[in-house]
């Protein structure tokens, strides 16, 4: 590489946009490969036991409104799964008649439809309300 | 085959005509090129500086409507302006806002003297102080607006923590405090610019003057007053003139922080012009206001120029 070419290539006005472009590309690739819209988690009662057949509601949130996007039920192990989350900011709430409801759990993602497996369970507070 | 036309063989006058004709054609080509090269810039300046200036003056004497056309009405707008309380308030506020020029320059003088001293890291300090100037004024306005917030703002928090006030102050909603608050934000943003101009002036002062004065036994204060200040005069007045211009035309900060409120207590001429033209749709009245604003600007700049000994562009030529 000649000296002049080296000076041009290492000029900060060339390096900076190239680095930015590279980061953008890598990030977009990552997003594309992980944006499947799947949200999984599980529901437990206040004793920590998994709750089967609880209704989980997913709501999409923006600055001013909350709108419902889907519901599903937990399976025998208390796990649930949403397939078509299109948002980056959702709220989940679990409910089972007789076992109470959980609080409204906000889930904020890095990009839309990010694949997320929630580690913290939704806890039903128990008791009919 | 050589025809044998040489200077010696051509009649003398014909040779001279040939040369001058050739030079003339070349000269004409050069003139054409000059004007072609000047044309784009001159068009832009004509369209967006000269023509608007003249059109403003014309509009200020007309009644103008986009639908009904124009009609000459003489001084009616100026009479309306004379009786308009908001105009006088905004004019007064603009004059107060102009204070940000000398105050800012004094502060910048202190800072630039410190930065100019032979200390480690002066470039870092210079960068930090200058950082606020190239920022988007809208964002700066939002940040300061929130720092002044009555309930959650930083300033109220610090003042209460320090015990200086008991109840939170509504900086941007109070009639007395709003203009100084906006002034402070403006000074924060423009300090770096003044500092750069003054630094350039400081660095143009030859060091041997100070050395000679030291040898002669002058104290540092004397050196400052007798050497630094006089040699900084062009830079100081350049900063002052530019400061006047930017203060009179400082729209973004007021629009974002207060919208001219509360009740026009922070209304500047330039924001009133914008409102009259684009919110009240009184383009002709806005033109009259603009004429007054421009006259104010020209007067103050002329005064500033005269006070500097005539040539505020001196720094530009030297630097």
């Amino acid at each position: 590489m000649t000296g002049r070419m080296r000076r041009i290539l290492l000029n900060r006005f060339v390096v900076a946009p190239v680095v930015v472009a590279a980061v953008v590309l890598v990030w977009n690739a990552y997003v594309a490969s992980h944006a499947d819209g799947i949200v999984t988690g599980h529901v437990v009662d206040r004793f920590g036991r998994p709750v089967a057949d609880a209704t989980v509601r997913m709501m999409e949130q923006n600055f001013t409104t909350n709108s419902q996007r889907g519901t599903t039920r937990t399976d025998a192990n208390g796990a649930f799964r949403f397939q078509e989350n299109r948002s980056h900011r959702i709220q989940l709430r679990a409910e089972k008649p007789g076992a109470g409801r959980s609080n409204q759990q906000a889930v904020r993602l890095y990009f839309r439809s990010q694949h997320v497996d929630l580690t913290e369970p939704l806890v039903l507070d128990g008791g009919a309300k | 085959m050589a025809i044998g036309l040489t200077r010696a063989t051509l009649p003398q006058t014909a040779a001279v005509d040939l040369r001058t004709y050739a030079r003339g054609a070349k000269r004409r080509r050069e003139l054409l090129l000059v004007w072609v090269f000047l044309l784009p810039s001159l068009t832009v300046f004509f369209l967006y500086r000269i023509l608007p200036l003249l059109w403003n003056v014309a509009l200020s004497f007309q009644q103008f409507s986009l639908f009904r056309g124009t009609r000459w009405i003489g001084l009616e707008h100026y009479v309306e302006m004379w009786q308009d309380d908001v105009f006088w308030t905004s004019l007064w506020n603009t004059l107060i806002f102009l204070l940000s020029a000398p105050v800012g320059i004094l502060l910048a003088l202190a800072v630039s003297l410190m930065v100019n001293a032979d200390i480690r890291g002066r470039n870092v300090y210079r960068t930090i102080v200058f950082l606020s100037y190239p920022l988007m004024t809208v964002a700066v306005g939002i940040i300061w607006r929130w720092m002044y917030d009555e309930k959650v703002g930083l300033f109220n928090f610090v003042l209460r923590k320090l015990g200086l006030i008991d109840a939170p102050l509504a900086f941007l909603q109070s009639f007395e405090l709003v203009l100084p608050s906006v002034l402070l934000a403006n000074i924060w943003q423009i300090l770096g610019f003044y500092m750069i101009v003054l630094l350039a002036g400081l660095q143009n002062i030859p060091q041997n003057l100070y050395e000679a004065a030291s040898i002669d036994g002058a104290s540092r204060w004397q050196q400052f007053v007798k050497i630094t200040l006089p040699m900084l005069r062009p830079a100081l007045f350049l900063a002052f003139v530019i400061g006047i211009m930017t203060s009179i035309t400082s729209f973004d900060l007021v629009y974002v922080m207060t919208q001219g409120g509360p009740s026009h207590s922070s209304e500047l001429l330039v924001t009133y012009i914008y409102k009259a033209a684009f919110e009240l749709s009184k383009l002709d009245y806005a033109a009259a206001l603009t004429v007054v604003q421009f006259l104010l600007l020209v007067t103050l700049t002329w005064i500033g120029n005269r006070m500097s000994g005539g040539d505020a562009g001196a720094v530009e030529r030297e630097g």
Partner: protein
Amino acid sequence: MNRPKPSRSDPMHRYPRWPLHVMLVAISFAMLLPFYWVLKTSLTGENIFVYPPSILPHHAQPFYYVDVWYFIPFARFLLNSVIVSVLAIVANVVFNAMAAFALSKSFPGRGWIITLLLSCMMIPFQTTIVPAYLITGKLGLLNSYLGLALPTFSTIVCIFVYKASFDAIPRSLIDAARIDGLSELRILMRIMLPLSTSAIATNVILAFIWSWNNFLWPLIVVRDQAMQTLPLGLSRFLSDHENTTGALYAFCIMVLAPGIALFLMAQKQFIRGLTSGATKG
């Protein structure tokens, strides 16, 4: 403070350095405090709703930035700003260099043109908004990229920057080129511009900053939300959502970042451009 220490390089100025550092650090603190505060809030959302605020950030999370990216057409605003700025920069470099080149020759009327330009510097943009709006309307350029960029296509400050740079080129070079038969345009492009790279850099930086930060003109000219530039988008967001979300401050940071990055990379050109005449053209 009792015994002055000799300075490192100048034996004439003996005075202690640490008070200077203390004062400069205090000033730096005052200048940087707003940045820190807005950065902290954009990362934590603290002290928008809760008082008293905490000094250090707790629970930093980047999700307000995600909100800004998706809930606001930030990419669109960014694109608009970039297009307008690129238009302004290219036009500026081309037109200003041409005009300065023309001014570097002597021709009848040159003095008048220079006086005219200097007096145009006295006409700030804010005193032209009403007719500029009408003219842009008559040209049919309202709400368009060209209309947004057109008033900034040429600036007098930059013309004089080029002129100073061109005047510094030795006449012998230009005369030699003329004798070699180069056309004027070629002389400009092959000789004068390559020797004026710092003037070009200054022009690029100044044109970028003025068009990027320009708020009043887009406010007047833009009608659709899709054509808004970043400052306009930011101000509309403020008036829609006021102080209710940390996303406003994330928006601020995202808007300030390019300007700060560019400034830090190009400080010298910036400062040189500003000290050589420094009025908003």
